[in-house]
C-alpha cells in the first residue's frame, strides 16, 4: 500500500509529474530564449511555455467531423501517461533512485517511443492528409533513431555488466546500478570506449525531440505541423506537456547514462548539479544544433541516422566487446 502511494507520488510530484514538467518547461523556455539570442532576436520570456499551455487549456476542444473520435482524444492522453511514468524511472544521482529502485533500461527503452506513437496515432486519427504524411514520416524517423539508441543502451549495459562481473561477459540493465557503478569507477562519458556512444546519444537527442534538423514529421513549411495540425486547445496543450516531460526524460537519461557524478552529500546541491548537466546537454545537442541547421528531407535524415550514429554506437559496442 505505501509502495503504491509512493509510486503515485513519484509519478505525480517528484521526479515525474510536476517537477519534470516544471523542469521541462524551464528547459523549453530557455531553449527558445537562447535560440532567439543566437539569431539576434529578443525571444519570449522564460515562462512562455507555461503561458502557451495555460492559454490552450482554457480553449475549446475541437474534433474534426471525419476524425476517429476515440483515438483522436486518446492519443494525447496516451503519450502523456507514457512520459509521466517514464519520468519517474529516471534516477537523479544523489537525490532519487528511480521508481521502486528499478529504473530498468529496457522499460525506459519501451516507454520512450510512446509520445512519438501518440503523435502517429493522433495524426492518423485526425483524418487529415497531412496527418497521414506526418504518420509515415514519424514512423521512419522512429525506426531511424531507435536503432542507434538500442545500440547505445546495449553498449552501456555491457560495459557496466562486464565491470560488475569482474571482466566476464555480462549485461546490467538496472539504471540504478549503472549510476552506482559510474560513481565508483568514473563517468562513462569520459571512458574512451564510450565516447562514440555518447556522441551518438547527442545525435539521437534532436531526432527524438523532433527539433531541426529532424523536425521532419511536423515540418511547418512542408506539411504544416502534420499530425498536430488538427489539434487545438487542451489536447494540444497535452502534447506540449508531453514534449516537456520528454525533454526532461531524454536529458535526464543522458545524464544518468554518461555523467551521473555527484559533487556533494547534500541532495539540493546534487539536484542543481543534475539540472546544470541537463542544461549543458540541451544547449549542446538541441539549441546549438537547431540554430545552425535547416531541415533534412526524410530520406536524407533516415540515411544520416542509419549511418553516422549507428556507426558510432557500433564502434562503442565493439570496443566494449573486445576490451
Amino acid at each position: 500500500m505505501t509502495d503504491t502511494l509512493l509510486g503515485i507520488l513519484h509519478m505525480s510530484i517528484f521526479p515525474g509529474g510536476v517537477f519534470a514538467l516544471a523542469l521541462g518547461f524551464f528547459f523549453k523556455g530557455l531553449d527558445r530564449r537562447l535560440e532567439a539570442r543566437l539569431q539576434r532576436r529578443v525571444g519570449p520570456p522564460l515562462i512562455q511555455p507555461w503561458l502557451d499551455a495555460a492559454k490552450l487549456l482554457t480553449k475549446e476542444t475541437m474534433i474534426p467531423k471525419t476524425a476517429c473520435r476515440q483515438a483522436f482524444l486518446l492519443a494525447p492522453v496516451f503519450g502523456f501517461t507514457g512520459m509521466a511514468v517514464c519520468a519517474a524511472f529516471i534516477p537523479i544521482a544523489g537525490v532519487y533512485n528511480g521508481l521502486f529502485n528499478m529504473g530498468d533500461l529496457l522499460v525506459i527503452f519501451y516507454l520512450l517511443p510512446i509520445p512519438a506513437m501518440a503523435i502517429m496515432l493522433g495524426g492518423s486519427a485526425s483524418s487529415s492528409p497531412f496527418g497521414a504524411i506526418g504518420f509515415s514520416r514519424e514512423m521512419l524517423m522512429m525506426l531511424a533513431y531507435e536503432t542507434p539508441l538500442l545500440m547505445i543502451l546495449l553498449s552501456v549495459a555491457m560495459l557496466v555488466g562486464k565491470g560488475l562481473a569482474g571482466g566476464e561477459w555480462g549485461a546490467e540493465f538496472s539504471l540504478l546500478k549503472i549510476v552506482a557503478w559510474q560513481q565508483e569507477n568514473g563517468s562513462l562519458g569520459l571512458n574512451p570506449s564510450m565516447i562514440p556512444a555518447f556522441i551518438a546519444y547527442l545525435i539521437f537527442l534532436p531526432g527524438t525531440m523532433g527539433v531541426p534538423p529532424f523536425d521532419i514529421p511536423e515540418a511547418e513549411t512542408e506539411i504544416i505541423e502534420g499530425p498536430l495540425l488538427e489539434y487545438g486547445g487542451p489536447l494540444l496543450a497535452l502534447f506540449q506537456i508531453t514534449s516537456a516531460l520528454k525533454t526532461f526524460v531524454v536529458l535526464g537519461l543522458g545524464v544518468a547514462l554518461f555523467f551521473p557524478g555527484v559533487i556533494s552529500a547534500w541532495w539540493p546541491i546534487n539536484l542543481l548539479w543534475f539540472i546544470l548537466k541537463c542544461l549543458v546537454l540541451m544547449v549542446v545537442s538541441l539549441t546549438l544544433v537547431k540554430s545552425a541547421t535547416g531541415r533534412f528531407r526524410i530520406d536524407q535524415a533516415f540515411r544520416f541516422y542509419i549511418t553516422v550514429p549507428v556507426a558510432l554506437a557500433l564502434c562503442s559496442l565493439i570496443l566494449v566487446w573486445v576490451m
Partner: protein
Amino acid sequence: MNTGNSTFTIPLGPVHVALEEPVYFRLTVEGETIRDVNLTSGHVHRGMEAMAMQRNLLQNATLVERVCSLCSNSHSFTYCMAVENVTGLVIPPRARFLRSLAEEIKRVASHLFNTAIQAHIIGFKSLFMHTMEVREMMQDVKETVYGNRMNLGQNCIGGVKCDLTPELFTYILGMLEKVEPAVEELREVFATNSMVVGRTKGLGLLPKEDALRLGVVGPVARGSGINVDVRKASPYAAYPDLKFNVITNDGCCAYSRTRVRLDEIFESISMIRQCCRMTPDGPTKAYLPQITVNEACARTEAPRGEVFYFIRTDGTDVPQRLKWRVPSYMNWEALGVMMRDCKVADVALITNSIDPCVSCTER
C-alpha cells in the same frame, strides 16, 4: 505494395505557411512522391485591369504600383514608360538614372527576400533571420531615400517624383559598403552550406530546352543557362550607360537559381554605385503632351523577369485598354516540369525557386 490505388490527394494552400501568397496546389501523391500537380489560382484577383480602364493616366501610376509589393517599382516604371511611348514623351537624363537607381535598390531587396524565404522553407531559421537582417539595410535605404519601405512611389509619368540630394547619394554609397560584405557572406553560405546545398542542388530541374519551350523569364531562365535580360536586350532608362553582366548558371536547378539571384545582387550593387556617381544634373520631370489616339508597349526587367505593358489611348486621359504581362505568368508553367516526381517536402521549395508573385499574376 499495391500500386493500383495507393495515391491520395493533398491540398497545399491556398493558405500555407511556406507560400507568401494564396495559391492552391492539389497534389496527388504516392507516399512522399508527387505524381500529379493541379494548380488553381485566382484568390487575389482584384480586377485591376478593369480598374485601370476607369481611371486616368495619372491615377493609374498609383494603381499599378499596388499590383504587387516586391516588384511594385517595376510596375509603375513600365507603366510610365508605356505612357511615355504612347505620347512620344522623352524624359530628362537625370530622371533616367534615378529610375534605374530605384529599380536596382528594389531588386537587391527582392532577391534577398526570396533567398531568405528559401532558408525559411528549408527550416533554417537562423539563416532566414540573418538574410532578413541584411535585407533590412536595403529597407532602411528605401525608407530614408523615398520615405517608404515597399511602395517607393518614385516613378511618375515624365520622370521621377523624388529628386535625390548629394547627401542621399553619399548615404546610399555608405550603406552599400555595409551591404556588400554581408551579401558576400550570405553568398558563401548559400553556396557551400551542406544543408542548403543538400536540399536545393539538383532540385526542380528545368532543362534548357524546356525553359526555352516554356518561355520562362528572369532568374528562372538565367538559372537554366539562357542569357536573357531586357536590360541588355533592349536597354531602357539608364541601362545603356551602365556597365553590368548578365548572370547565368547552367545548373538548371533551384540551387542555380539562388546562385543567379545572389550574384545579381552584386551586379545591382555595382549599378547603384554607377548611378550614384553618374547621375547628371538637370530637371527630373518632363511635361505630358496632348494625348492622341495611339497604342504602345514597354518592357522592363523586374526582379522576377520581364514585365510587359501594353496601352491604347483614345485621345482622352483614360486609357482604352491597359494590359500587362508579368514574369510569374510565364514561370508558373515551368512548375509542371520542375515538380515532376519530386517529394512533398520539396514542393514549397520548388515553388519558391521561381520566386512566384501571385498578386501580380492574378491582379
